[in-house]
C-alpha cells in the first residue's frame, strides 16, 4: 500500500471550466466517415487504385493503343513480348517443282547413306529448299527436321515428309518456319520401308523475310520509299507479344477486358438490382407474401449453378456471328439474384425491429419516409459490399466456362478464353497464359480487397467502437 500525504493545497480548486463540451472535430455523415476509414486502410486504397487503373485500361486503352485485335500476322505467330525484329525483303513465293534425278538399280542389300544435302537458295522463313544426291537402291526418302542437334543419339525430330518416288531428291519445307537453327536429316528407305542406318544432317539458319507487298500493306514502310531485295525493315512491334494467330496480345487483352469486365460488372449490377427489389418487397410486406416469395427464391438457389449455366447456354444457342455474351449475362442474372434478395430481406427485417424505426413512427413518419431515410441507406452498405464481391465471382465463372469451352464464342476475346488457349501452349509460349491469368488474378484480388475495405469502412458496429 502506497503512502499519501495530503495537504490543504491538494484540495484547492483547479480551474473553472465554463465550456465542458467542445467540438473536437467536424461532424461527419455516415458516408464521409466511411470514406475516411476507407482511405486510412492502405490495402483497400491500393486496390481502389488498381480497379480504377483497370477500368482506364479497358475503356481508354484502345484509344491509346490503336492496333486492331483481330489483325492476324502469320509471320509472327506466338512471339514473346518485346524485342525488336527485322526482316529482309524477298521476292514473293513462287511454287517450286523440285529436283528429280534418274534412278540406277543397285545390287546392294541395304540402302546406303545420303551423301550430301544442300540448300538450293538461302534459307528463310518463307521456304527452305533442300536437294540431295540420289542414293543407290533407295525406294524413297524421309525428311526430318529438329530444333536440337540430332548428333548424339540420332533423335532426328519431326518427320516432315515421306517421299515414295525414288526420283525425287528434293524437298521444300514450309512448315511453321521461324528464324532459328534447324537440323535437317534425309534418310533413304528401302522397298519395305526400312530406313538406312546412316544418313546426313544439315544445319540451317533461317532468316526472317517479308515481301515488299506485305511490308507496304502492313504499313511498315512509307509507300514512297523504294524497296529493293535485301533491304531490312522492322516488323510490327508487339509490346506484349502475339498469340497463336499472330494477333497483338496487348490489344486482345484490352478488348478481352471489355468483355470480361462488362460481364463482370453488368451482371452483378442487374442481379443485385433484382435482388434488392425482390428482397425489400418481401421484407417490407412480410407475412404470407414474404413466405411465398422466399420459397420461390429458395428454389432458384437450389439449382446447381454451373450445371444450369451450361444448360442455359446450350438452350439459348449462339447463332453465327454472335458473341455469346448476352446469353451468359442472362443466365448469370437469372441464377444469382436470389442470394442478394435473401440478404436484403434479412437486412430489412433486422432494421424493422430497430428502435429508431419505432421512434420515427411514433414521431409521425410516413412509410415512404421510413424507406427512403432509414431502410435504404442502411442496406446500401451491404449491397455495395455484395456487389464488389460479386464481380470477381462472375469473372471467375466466365473464365471457368470459357475454359471448358462454354463461354463466349470466337473471335470475341475474353480473358477466360485467352487462358483456355494459353494453357495449351503453356510450355512453349507461357506468355499466352500468364498475361490473361495475371490480369484475372489482379482484378479478382483488387475487387476482393476493395470489398474487404468497404465492408470494414461501412460496418456500423465497428463505427461505434471508435
Amino acid at each position, binding site marked *: 500500500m502506497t503512502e499519501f500525504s495530503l495537504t490543504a493545497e491538494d484540495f484547492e480548486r483547479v480551474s473553472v471550466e465554463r465550456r465542458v463540451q467542445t467540438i473536437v472535430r467536424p461532424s461527419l455523415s455516415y458516408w464521409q466517415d466511411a470514406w475516411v476509414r476507407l482511405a486510412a486502410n492502405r490495402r483497400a486504397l491500393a486496390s481502389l487504385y488498381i480497379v480504377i487503373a483497370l477500368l482506364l485500361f479497358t475503356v481508354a486503352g484502345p484509344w491509346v493503343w490503336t492496333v486492331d485485335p*483481330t*489483325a*492476324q500476322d*502469320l509471320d509472327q*505467330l506466338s512471339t514473346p513480348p518485346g524485342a525488336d525484329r527485322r526482316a529482309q525483303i524477298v521476292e514473293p513465293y513462287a511454287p517450286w517443282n523440285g529436283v528429280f534425278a534418274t534412278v540406277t538399280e543397285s545390287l546392294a542389300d541395304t540402302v546406303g547413306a545420303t551423301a550430301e544435302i544442300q540448300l538450293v537458295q538461302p534459307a528463310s522463313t518463307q521456304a527452305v529448299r533442300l536437294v540431295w544426291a540420289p542414293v543407290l537402291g533407295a525406294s524413297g526418302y524421309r525428311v526430318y527436321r*529438329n*530444333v*536440337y542437334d540430332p548428333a548424339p*543419339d540420332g*533423335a532426328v*525430330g*519431326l*518427320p*516432315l*515428309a*515421306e517421299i*515414295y518416288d525414288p526420283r525425287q531428291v528434293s524437298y521444300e519445307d*514450309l*512448315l*511453321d*518456319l521461324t528464324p532459328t537453327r534447324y537440323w535437317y536429316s534425309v534418310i533413304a528407305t528401302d522397298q519395305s520401308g526400312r530406313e538406312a542406318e546412316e544418313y546426313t544432317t544439315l544445319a540451317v539458319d533461317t532468316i526472317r523475310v517479308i515481301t515488299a507487298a506485305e511490308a507496304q500493306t502492313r504499313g511498315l514502310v512509307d509507300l514512297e520509299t523504294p524497296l529493293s531485295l535485301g533491304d531490312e525493315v522492322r516488323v510490327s512491334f508487339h509490346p506484349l507479344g502475339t498469340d*497463336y*494467330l499472330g494477333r497483338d496480345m496487348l490489344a486482345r487483352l484490352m478488348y478481352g477486358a471489355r468483355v470480361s469486365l462488362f460481364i463482370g460488372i453488368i451482371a452483378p449490377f442487374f442481379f443485385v438490382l433484382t435482388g434488392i427489389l425482390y428482397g425489400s418487397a418481401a421484407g417490407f410486406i412480410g407475412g404470407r407474401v414474404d413466405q411465398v416469395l422466399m420459397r420461390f427464391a429458395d428454389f432458384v438457389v437450389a439449382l446447381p449453378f454451373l450445371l444450369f449455366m451450361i444448360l442455359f447456354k*446450350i438452350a439459348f*444457342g*449462339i*447463332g*453465327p*456471328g454472335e458473341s455469346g455474351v448476352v446469353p451468359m449475362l442472362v443466365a448469370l442474372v437469372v441464377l444469382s439474384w436470389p442470394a442478394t434478395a435473401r440478404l436484403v430481406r434479412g437486412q430489412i427485417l433486422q432494421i424493422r425491429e430497430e428502435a429508431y424505426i419505432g421512434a420515427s413512427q411514433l414521431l409521425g413518419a410516413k412509410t415512404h419516409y421510413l424507406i427512403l431515410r432509414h431502410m435504404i441507406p442502411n442496406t446500401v452498405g451491404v449491397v455495395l459490399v455484395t456487389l464488389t464481391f460479386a464481380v470477381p465471382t462472375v469473372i471467375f465463372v466466365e473464365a471457368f466456362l470459357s475454359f471448358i*469451352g462454354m463461354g463466349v*464464342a*470466337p*473471335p470475341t476475346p475474353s480473358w477466360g478464353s485467352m487462358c*483456355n*488457349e494459353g*494453357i*495449351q*501452349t*503453356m*510450355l*512453349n*509460349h507461357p506468355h499466352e497464359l500468364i498475361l490473361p491469368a495475371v490480369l484475372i488474378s489482379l482484378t479478382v484480388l483488387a475487387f476482393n480487397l476493395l470489398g474487404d475495405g468497404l465492408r470494414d469502412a461501412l460496418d456500423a458496429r465497428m463505427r461505434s467502437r471508435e
Partner: protein
Amino acid sequence: MPNTIPDVSNSLTRSASFQLVWLGIAATLGFALLMVLLSWASALTGSGSSTLNAIDAESGTLTLQLSTEPPQLDSTRATDSVSIMILGHVMEGLLRFDANNQLVPGVAERWEIREDGATFWLREDARWSDGLPVTAHDFSFAWHTALAPETASEYAFILYPLKNAEAINTGTLPSDALGVRAVNDRVLEVEFEQPLAYFEELVAFPTYNPIREDFYRNRDGRYGADVEDLLYNGPFEMTVWVHGAHLRLEKNTDYWDRERVRLNVIDIPYFTTDTTAALNLYKDGQIAIVDYLGAEQLDEVLQQRWELLRFGDGSVWFLAFNFDPGRVTSNWHLRKALQLVTDPSELVNRIIKLPGNLPGESLFPVWLQGIDGFFRQEYPAPQIALDASAAREHLRLAMEELGLDEPPSLALLVDDTPGAGRQAEYFQNLYGTQLGIDIRIDRQIFKQRLAKMQNQDFDIATYGWGPDFADPLTFGELFASWNPNNNGRFSNQEYDQSVRLAQSSLDPRIRMDAFGRQQEILSEEVALIPNYERGRVYIKDRRLQGVVRRAVGPDPDFTNAYIVETP
C-alpha cells in the same frame, strides 16, 4: 494503481499453440484413417494397376491411354473409331487387314467373289472364347440383326450391297429375304444386289463381324455392354471393363492364329481427352504411346528426344457449300472467288502446324489406289493458281448477278474443338481482308452442328470425311445427289451418272476414269474447297515394335506388336 489485469495474450498464445499441435496430430491421424477408408471405397471403381509401367517385357504387358471409352461393343451398332479399334482386337470377321494393310483370310479360309455373289469357306479351328466353333450361321445372324430396323444400326448402309438389304432395312421386305445363306456350318453364300467391285473391302468392316445367336438372345438386350456380355473370337479377349476407368485385354489362347500374337496383355487404365495429361503420363513412363500430339507439344517432345512418327489418318477436310437456290453460295462466281484466294498450304503450314497434314488439292486423298499405282498419280488433281485480282473480279460478277451492293455476309459453321476455332478465325480474317466478305462464325457442339448441316442451315461449313472402305467410291459418292451426307445438296447430273457407273462397273479402268472425271467436275464447279488431308504425329516407346496404323480398319493395331528389350 498498478495494472493487475494479467497479460492474457502471451500465455494464451503459448497454450493455444500446444492445443493446436495436439489438434493437428489428432487431425492427421483421423485423416489417415479416412484415407484408408476412401482408398478401400475407390478400389471398387478404380484402375488399381498404377504400379505397372508402360512396357513390361517379362509379362508381355503394354499399358495405354485412350481418349474415350467405347460406348458399347455391339458390332452391329459400333460407329466410332475407338469401338472399331477394340473390336478389331477382340473380334474377327471373315477377312482382316494384315500388317501391310492387305486383306488376308480371317475366319474365312478362302473365298470366291463372282459377279452376282460370293462364297466363303470358313476354317475349322476358329473358335469363340467359350470353346464353341465360329460358324457361318453366326455371320448370317449378325448381318440379319444389323439390317433389322429395330436395331437401328447407323452403319446398316454398309450391308446394302447384299441382295434386298436396303429393302429389309427400310422395312419393305421381311428379314428372311436377305441374300445371305449359311449352307452349312462351314460355308456362307452371299448374293449381291448388283455387281460389286469392292465387296472384299467391305467385308472386313466391323458391322460384318459374326455374333452368336444363342448368346445374343441370352443377354437380355445387354449384348456388348459389359465384359460378360460379349463373346470373343479375336486375338485378344477382354477381361476387365470398368466403364470410363479401366479396360484390359488379354491374349486369347483359343484364337486360331495365336502364333502371330506376341503381346500377352494390353492394359488401358487411363481415359482422358486432355493431351497434356497424356503427355505427362508418357513422360512419367506410365503409357507407351501418345497417339495424338498437338502442335504446341512438339517442342517438348523434341526436347525430350523421343521418336516421332507420322500417320495420315486417311480423312479429307474441306469447306462445304450450301447449294440451296436461296443462298448466295449457290452462285458459282462467289465460290470461284473464294477458291482463288484460299491457300491450303498456308492453312496447313501456319495454322495447323502439324507434320502429317497435307495441303488439300482434291476430294480424293493421296493414299487411294488407282489402277496400278496411286490414284492421284494417275489422275492428278487440277491445280488452282491463286489470283487475288481475278477473285475480286469474280466477286464483282457475283454481286452483279445476285443484285448486291456490298459483299455478302456468310455464316461459317464449325464444330467446337479448339482447332476448329482457330481455322474459323483464320478464314474469317482471310476472306475479310482479301475480299471484304464478312464471315460470321457459327460454333456449335457436335449434335447441333449436325442438325444445322442436315437442315441446310449454313452458308459454308468445315467438313471432314473419313473412309469407310479402301476404294475411291467412299469419297466419290459423298457428292452424289441422293447421298444423305451431301449436306449442301450439290447436284450435278453428269456427276451422278459418273458415280452410278463407278458403283456398278467391274472394270478398274472404267471406274478410275469415272473417279477422275468426278474429280474434275468437283473442281470446275467448285463444289468444295479442299483444305487438308489429315494426319498426325505421335510418339511411341522404342521398345514397342510392330504397331500397325491404318486409314481404313482398326487403328492402331497391336495384334502384331511385340516388345524388344533394347531398341
